[in-house]
């Protein structure tokens, strides 16, 4: 993977660090998705292996100690649990979330062109920003409604 010169300017390097953090949060890269599966029930020679799961866009979001094997797609956010060793991650993904951008492409990271990959990045950063915003907006609306109730119930 080509590396960029980070020593050039502190400004650029902080920007790159931020970008790296964002990419890790978004689980854009397959290797970051693989890292989420620390404790997985299926071995590499089974259909539902860690690498196949990550290839199909899933990252682990469950808790194996509580028997929760949920995995979430990094693009559409679909959460699937109850995996079996005969499950094909791609087929399951398509079955449960046919409209997912990643399912529509149906190719692993290495098979995507740089342009497609960047478009995917654009798509999920939009989703990420929108989700973050919606959370903030919901809090704002709730607080404002509470204040409104207080004003309304004032006794003169």
């Amino acid at each position, binding site marked *: 993977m*080509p590396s960029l010169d980070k020593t050039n300017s502190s400004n650029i390097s902080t920007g790159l660090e931020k970008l790296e953090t964002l990419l890790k949060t978004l689980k854009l890269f397959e290797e970051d998705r693989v890292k989420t599966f620390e404790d997985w029930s299926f071995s590499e020679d089974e259909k539902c292996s860690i690498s196949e799961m990550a290839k199909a866009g899933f990252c682990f979001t469950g808790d194996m100690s509580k028997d929760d094997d949920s995995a979430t797609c990094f693009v559409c956010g679909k959460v699937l649990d109850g995996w079996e060793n005969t499950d094909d991650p791609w087929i399951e993904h398509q079955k449960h979330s046919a409209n997912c951008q990643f399912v529509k492409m149906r190719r692993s990271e290495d098979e995507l*062109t740089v342009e497609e990959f*960047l478009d995917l990045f*654009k798509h999920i*950063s*939009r989703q990420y*920003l929108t989700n973050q915003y919606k959370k903030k907006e919901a809090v704002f609306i709730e607080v404002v409604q509470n204040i409104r109730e207080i*004003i309304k119930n004032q006794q003169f």
Partner: protein
Amino acid sequence: MPRTKLTKGGSNKRARENVAELEDLLRDFDIEFDSNLQTMRRLHQKNLEDADNIIEGFKMELGNRILSLTMGDLKKMNSLNEIGLDKTVNNLNATIKETLKKVDEGYLTEEASNKSRLTSDSESGSTAKVSIIGPLKAHKSRRRSQSANNVPSSSQVVTPGPRAMISHLKMRTPLATLNADAMAGGFPSSHVSRSKFRTPLQKSTQPSKRAASADRVQTIIPKCNPTTPISILRHARVGEVAFSVTGSPIVPTSVVESTANVNIPVANGILSIRPQNLDPSTLNTSLLDKFDNGTIDHLRKLKANLDTLMAKFEEKNNARH
């Protein structure tokens, strides 16, 4: 015999007033809330657009060759040289260098008005004749020496603003009159300084005239949006006071130029790019340091806009033939 006095709905009236007041208050509250929510949503949309622009800009920078590679191939590469990215960067350096050289050699000797623009000595690499635009401190330091010389110069950049109006309001001394005359005669004086030899006690005999100030002008309604990618603007007329509504730097020229050119504000002046051929080998690379990231983003968008425009022209030409 006294009897209980009946109040004519006094308390009721007060209660009604209170309710009405509360309703007003709540209505104001709702309006305020709505407008805040709208602002938040607008900002969010802008954030989304910014994020899109960053990625689109990055895609444009990479070029079609890299964009069409697969991620697998890209990962196999050891350095950026293999995909010719370093070449792309060098070409860009060269293009800017050439433009600047031409600007320095050609236009500057012919047009006095261009003297003030940022130019570069292509051989020594030093920056010469940097105009004073923008920072008030720098502008002030120059003002002083000019007022001492008492010579209005035609080659200076007019820094328009409320100060220019002072000349019309405060013609107390011969010096001020001279400046005003110079302006009337077509000399775009860069400033009108206050004379050191002011008549004392003038204040007590008549009320002082108020200097023009941005706070005191009537509301300015922008008739066009200067922030759109392509906008047609006009040059400032001599003696005209220019107010920057959007806070953007303005470059008024005394001579209206007929050729298309690009003026880019950089660290200590304005970089002007002209429609002349640029020799990549003679570009001064120190100029690239003057661009900050924001400027580069803007240039990228500008380039995209020009490309779109040119593509349309080509289309039109093809349709004609």
